[in-house]
């Protein structure tokens, strides 16, 4: 309960001002396609040079919390996820928005984010020592199986065709192998100088989601009817509260999955939302409604990606190992003030450590309040005519993908993938499994190679990948996930006709 003692520190005028600044700034940066949480935090580091350690961390913590949630805004209204964490939010969130429920979807996403986020931070406060052991339990073999689990999600993510879902995933996995391979340093599939550095996930994400949206707006032509992108009906916040807490299963699965996955170094944030979405779909009594603008989809995805924020800092704060790129940047923010994270951080610098954690706690609530206010403004965002929206999104996509590493090559990759994705989408492929493949490919490959190197030097490949309870648990989940998908495919085939699929496709586009 020590954190309560330092809670007052968050509310001094200057600290609270920074918290507010970080939250508002984070929401805006998060909602801008191309600015991932890692980038937003890295961009803020120079500002923290001039601040006290405590104040600098408040700014960084608030920004980290709110960029993750802010990504939901563009994911829902424009079907452009602000960061990989928000991919799953597009699946139901944007479909809700096209049905006029944009405000409702935003309210649900911010409420679910706050619930998940608070749970995650409380885990960080109360269970850090226990969780630290967990974070270390995942060695190369376990991370490999975890990545495979992610791959099995690919096929069912796009429920209209398992084969095309898997094929989209394969395209993503292949794209991830382009460039230098991470361990050996050998060059693979470099057919153009733009891809010599490999395909960066952020520009690819922008292209794959934003460009098809832009082209779709072009296809509406110069007609005056249908000029608005989407219409948004008002939705009372009270009903959103009721809805979130009525969907207990989705909320619980999202929060728990997000917390557990957030803990695992190196995998964390990017896939938490997608795995939670998939799991809650499998456990839901209305699983067939997922993908058609179902509130559970938004709740699961958003509660998961914010629940991961707290636990993702456990390895950093206890073991001094950054578990995610964002945590690595936060580590820099600590070191610059001469603060070494580690088990005695809370003893040596209680004021800094607890104020940082408290700022994330208060930041979650502040983010939720501001987010609900933004949801009210959604109607005016949506009133933008599609010509303006198409041009704006195109400009943002170019600037956003350039700014990731000041590279023209990234812009070309973004545009090429985006244009190709538009045509692929017209033939039943979808972007979400493709991006998932792009993210999981390197994790699966690197851990497989490291695992086999360790295995060859010690116990042998078979024993290394197939012994130990954690390996078996993960393998069992993989098998369960695969058989569930196969079973769904067989039973669903009876009534999935071409017309059904087309109708659903129509609802989605």
């Amino acid at each position: 309960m020590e954190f309560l003692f330092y809670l007052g520190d968050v509310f001094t005028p200057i600290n609270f001002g920074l918290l507010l600044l970080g939250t508002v700034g984070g929401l805006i940066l998060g909602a801008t396609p191309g600015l991932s949480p890692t980038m937003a935090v890295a961009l803020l580091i120079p500002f923290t040079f001039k601040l006290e350690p405590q104040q600098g961390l408040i700014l960084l913590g608030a920004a980290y919390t709110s960029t993750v949630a802010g990504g939901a805004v563009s994911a829902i209204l424009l079907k452009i996820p602000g960061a990989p964490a928000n991919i799953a939010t597009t699946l139901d969130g944007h479909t809700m928005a096209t049905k006029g429920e944009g405000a409702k979807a935003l309210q649900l996403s911010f409420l679910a984010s706050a619930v998940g986020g608070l749970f995650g931070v409380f885990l960080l406060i109360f269970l850090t020592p226990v969780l630290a052991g967990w974070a270390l339990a995942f060695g190369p073999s376990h991370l490999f199986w975890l990545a495979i689990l992610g791959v099995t999600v690919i096929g069912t993510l796009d429920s209209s065709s398992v084969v095309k879902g898997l094929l989209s995933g394969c395209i993503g996995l292949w794209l991830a192998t382009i460039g230098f391979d991470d361990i050996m340093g050998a060059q693979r599939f470099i057919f153009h100088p733009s891809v010599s550095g490999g395909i960066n996930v952020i520009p690819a994400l922008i292209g794959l989601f934003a460009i098809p949206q832009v082209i779709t707006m072009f296809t509406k032509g110069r007609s005056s009817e249908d000029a608005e992108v989407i219409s948004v009906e008002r939705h009372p916040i009270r009903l959103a509260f009721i809805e979130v807490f009525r969907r207990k299963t989705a909320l619980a699965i999202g929060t728990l999955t997000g917390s557990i996955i957030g803990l695992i170094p190196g995998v964390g944030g990017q896939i938490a939302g997608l795995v939670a979405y998939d799991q809650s779909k499998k456990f839901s009594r209305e699983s067939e409604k997922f993908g058609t603008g179902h509130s559970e989809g938004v709740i699961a995805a958003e509660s998961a990606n914010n629940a991961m924020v707290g636990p993702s800092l456990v390895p950093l704060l206890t073991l001094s190992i950054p578990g995610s790129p964002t945590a690595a940047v936060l580590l820099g923010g600590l070191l610059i003030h001469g603060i070494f994270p580690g088990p005695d951080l809370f003893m040596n610098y209680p004021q800094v450590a607890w104020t940082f954690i408290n700022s994330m706690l208060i930041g979650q609530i502040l983010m939720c309040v501001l987010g609900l206010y933004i949801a009210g403004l959604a109607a005016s965002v949506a009133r933008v005519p599609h010509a303006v929206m198409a041009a704006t999104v195109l400009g943002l996509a170019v600037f956003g993908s350039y700014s990731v590493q000041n590279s023209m090559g990234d812009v070309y990759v973004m545009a090429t993938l985006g244009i190709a994705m538009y045509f692929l989408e017209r033939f039943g492929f979808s972007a979400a499994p493709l991006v998932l493949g792009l993210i999981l490919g390197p994790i699966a490959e690197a851990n497989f190679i490291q695992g086999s190197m360790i295995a060859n030097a010690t116990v042998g490949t078979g024993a290394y990948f197939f012994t130990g309870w954690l390996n078996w648990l993960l393998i069992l989940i993989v098998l369960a996930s695969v058989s569930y998908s196969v079973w769904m495919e067989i039973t669903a085939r009876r009534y999935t006709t071409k017309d059904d699929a087309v109708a659903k496709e129509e609802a989605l586009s």
Partner: protein
Amino acid sequence: MKHLIAGAALAMAAMTGSAFADGHADYPDRPVMMMVSYGAGGATDFQARIVTMTAGNEDALGMPIAIVNRPGAGGRVGWNWFASEAEADGYTLGAYNIPHFIAQSIEGGVSYSADSFEPIANWGADPAVFVVGADSAFNSMEDVVAYAKENPGGLTFSGAGLFVGHHIAALQLEKAAGVKLAYIPNNAGGAGAMRAVIAGDVLGGVNNLSDAFRAQQAGNVKILGVFDLERNAEFLPDVPTMQEQGFDIDNASVNFRGVMVPKGTPQGIIDKLAETVPAMFENQRVQSRMAAGGSPMAIMTRDEVLEMWAARQKTLEELLAGL
């Protein structure tokens, strides 16, 4: 009309001529970018951000330096870009890591070598150290080598990648101790390699002194030896060097970090940078932040760096020739 064009051409020539003559006096007139070939938050990135934080001061460049990360494949992605695509206009700087990029260029498959870059100044020297988990049975390098002799090729230890400083240290250790070891390169860099040691995925690891020092402070690892000619008096005065423990290993794996520009950058700009950048590293604020972060500094001028690069090129060619 002809006269007019000729006059204009003359005027243009005169203008550009004078711009060259005064040696780029107004450089830099806009913010400068510095490419770091490792991810945000890594040791190189962290240090690069600190040493460039005073660039905007009037006594330094007078313009801020913005860090841009181009990570991938142990630095190859960033340096390839720097050698082949970066504009040599003085507004694109890069961070170098020795011996990494020289070792990679000797090994091949990349489009750069020491001749592709012009060094400006060196800011830090981070020796590699050998770490084992806090509860490991190994208490000295002797224990480690004894285990390796009993289990040839069975001593697993992590490092940040292939043909980076850690790998060079590993090769030197293999050669000096006459044993076969299992070096496991990590895809997540030094942080990932350290995690593998603490989690017990591997029996030991080579890591940066600065990161190992932090992990030791946190009580997670034991540091058994330093791959350098002398002990590190500032951070690890009690840890013996490899030579003290009977292994003939020099400082070829010490990770030197500094600033460079692509070949072809105007000489006037190189001279100006070579003069101001070392002074910028001497700044008191920079020094205190680096010390606070546990990062050893070693400031070297352009001439000293040129010499160091040439020496490393020679040692590494010899070391890697045996592979």
